[in-house]
Every structure is written in C-alpha cells, then in structure tokens.
C-alpha cells in the first residue's frame, strides 16, 4: 500500500496543487476575520510546522498552493471558535470549506 501511494506521489505532475475553500460561521463566532492556518503533518516532525496562514473575512475564500503530502488546515477566530481538517493531497485540488460554530 505504501509503495502504491509513493508511486502515485512520484508519478504525479510537478505542478502546483492547492487546498482551497470558503470560511463562514454561524452565530456566536463574531463577525470579524478568521485566521486560516496551514501546517504540515509528517512523522519526522515532533510538532506541527506552520507553513502559511491568511486572514479571511467571513464568507471569504482562501487558497494554499502545496506539494503532495499530508496537511492540517485549522481555522480560528478572535472569539475562540476553531476547527480543523486533515487533508491528504496527491494530485487533485482539495476543497476544504469551514462553517464555524460557537462552542457550547
């Protein structure tokens, strides 16, 4: 299985892939901006390594250009709403939307 994944990664074209999405929220998360964080998930990293981040207004969009691999996209607001999704990207663009909800 590992070899299959590896060959898929190596055979994929060397053009920029991307993780893109829209960020919205329900009530309770404020109407300010949302920080979208992209970090790399890898066994050799003891801790997450932050690669990029961007402030997005509510209902706004973002796009990160990446190489094949495993990533974590996290979103957070000043009011403390947060969420994350893990993304394994090999050769296709990944769409990662967020609808933030206030913690109960």
């Amino acid at each position, binding site marked *: 299985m590992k070899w299959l994944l590896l060959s898929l990664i190596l055979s994929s074209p060397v053009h920029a892939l991307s993780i893109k999405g829209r960020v919205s929220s329900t009530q309770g998360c404020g109407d300010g901006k949302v920080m979208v964080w992209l*970090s790399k998930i890898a066994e050799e990293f003891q801790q*997450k390594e932050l690669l990029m981040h961007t402030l997005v207004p509510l209902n706004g969009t*973002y796009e990160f250009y990446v190489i094949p691999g495993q990533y974590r996209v996290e979103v957070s607001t*000043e009011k403390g709403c947060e969420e994350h999704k893990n993304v394994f990207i090999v050769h296709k663009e990944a769409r990662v939307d967020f609808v933030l909800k206030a913690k109960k």
Partner: protein
Amino acid sequence: MKYLFFILLFSSSTFAKFVADGCPMESVRTQGPQGFYCAPLYGLFPQPQTDCIVCLQMQLQRQQQMTAFNPWLMQMPFPMMPPQTPWWAQQGRMMYPNLQAPGAWQYPGMNPQPYPGNAPVFAAKPNVYVKNSSKTKTSFSMKFDLKESKSTFLATTPWLENNQWSGEIQGEEFRVDKVNYDYLFYDARMPHESMQFDAGWCINRADLVRSMAGELIQLGFSPLAMSDFYEHWDQKIPDEPVFCVYPQYNKELDAALPIQVKPAVPFLRVLFVLVPHRPDDKSQPVFPPLPRQSHFELRTKSIEGDLQFLEWGVAFLDHRLIK
C-alpha cells in the same frame, strides 16, 4: 559634559560617516535619527558593556539613535504606532513553535523543501490596498502574468480565478464574489534575477519594522495599510540581531511578477527582502553583498490620482542562495 559629547560625536565619524551615495568597503548603510549613514556591520550588533573609549562612543551613538529615532514617526497617533499583540498571534504561539518565522525557516533563510516552485525569493504577504479618494464605485481586475515569469503562488486570499481577481471597488475596499476585503493578499516565490541587492540598509531587529514602516509612510501608504504592516511583521520576523533590507520597487517587481490592473490606475509596489546576520557570519558575504548604495533613486515616484493601488510585502531568501 556637552563638550565631551560633541568630541565623542565628531570623533565617531571614523565609524559613522553620513553619505548620500555609496558606503566604502567594510561598512554598510544603516539608519539613525539624522537619516542614513555608513557604519561597520559589527557596530549594529548588541555590544557587551565595557569601559573602553571606542565602545563608549558606539554606545552613545546607539543610545542617540534609539531615543531620537524617527521622532516624526513617534509623534504619529495610532494606527501608525505598533499595536498590541494581535489575537491571532496569541493563539498561533500556542499552536505552532515556528509562529515567529515567516514559514519553514532554516537560518539564514527559508527552507524551500515544503513548498512548491523553485524561485528563491519567498515574498510573504504582499498585500494590495486601494486608495479611493473620490469614493466612487468602479469595477476592477488584477491579473497576474505567470507566462513570462518563474514565479509560483503559495497562497492567496481571495482565491484566484485564472490567475485573476476581479470585482468592484467600494470605498477603500475590494468586493470580490460578494465579500468585502480590506486588501488582496498573496504569497509567492519569485525569481531573484530581476531584483537588486546593492541598495538598502542594515539595522538591528528592534528598529527593523519601524524603519520599513518609515519607508512606507514616505511612499504614501494609508493608516490601515500601516497598521496591518505593524500587526503582521512585529510578529513574523525571526529573532536575529541584525537584518539587511533590500527594497524592491515597481521596476524589479514588475519584471519578477507582472500584474495587469484595470482600470489602468497608478499602482505602487514595494517589497522588502530581508537577510539576517549574526556576529559570527562572514564580514563580506558573497551573496547578497552588504547594502552600500542608497535606495532613494530606486524608489518609484510617488503616485497621484483619485484611485490608486498600493502593494507592500516582505520577503526572505531560500537559505541556499545566501553565501
């Protein structure tokens, strides 16, 4: 005491020479209260306290720079002044050990391994702002020309459609896909061949952000753009003692990553390429050389018109390029 001060000040001219043009070898351009001057790079590093006369001269000189640095900037009201730690930085520090770096960092520059593309200049967060003094609504588009460029995007907000943003300008905001943005943002890797590495200045970390902000004020950036600059770059520059700043303007940036804007309004671009230095680094690096030339003549002339686009950014080099 006054006489002693003047004697020290004038005798220190051996080490700090005010110049309009280039600096002699063994020195770099740096910035102080009276403007730019030449000084040895080692003079910019924090010095251990001693009672030697040369050290006393340099200590006095540094104190003078610290207290009188850009007094016109210090008098400006908020939001020209550095803001409190932003909420996202407080959260980010708890989540990521490398929050204070611009990304994957490997002294003295960026670690390119986790990113797509090959170009060595990591332009982190060029932000594009609009000045719209007439407040009229108008449609706009900004298209990046990647065909003739070796540049690669790393991130954008909002996302691009066919390498283009388009929408409407409402007041001093961009409206794209029914959402208002204070600014349009991108991260990109750009080629270094069209950029200049002769002119600029070196300065200690404590004064670095303020010195770049001073340049932005001279170029006419808005209070919002200045506030965002301080908020972001106060947090995102590694804690190294000294940085050399190589400012790139329209000429260099239009060659590295051309942008077509419609309507055809004045568009001012500036990108500060930063290279850190430690006391044990080479005194005469091979690349980039220490900046000895004035950047004044490279500046894009200030732009005019009811509608203007202005872009600021800060960049770091692929660590393998620095020798």
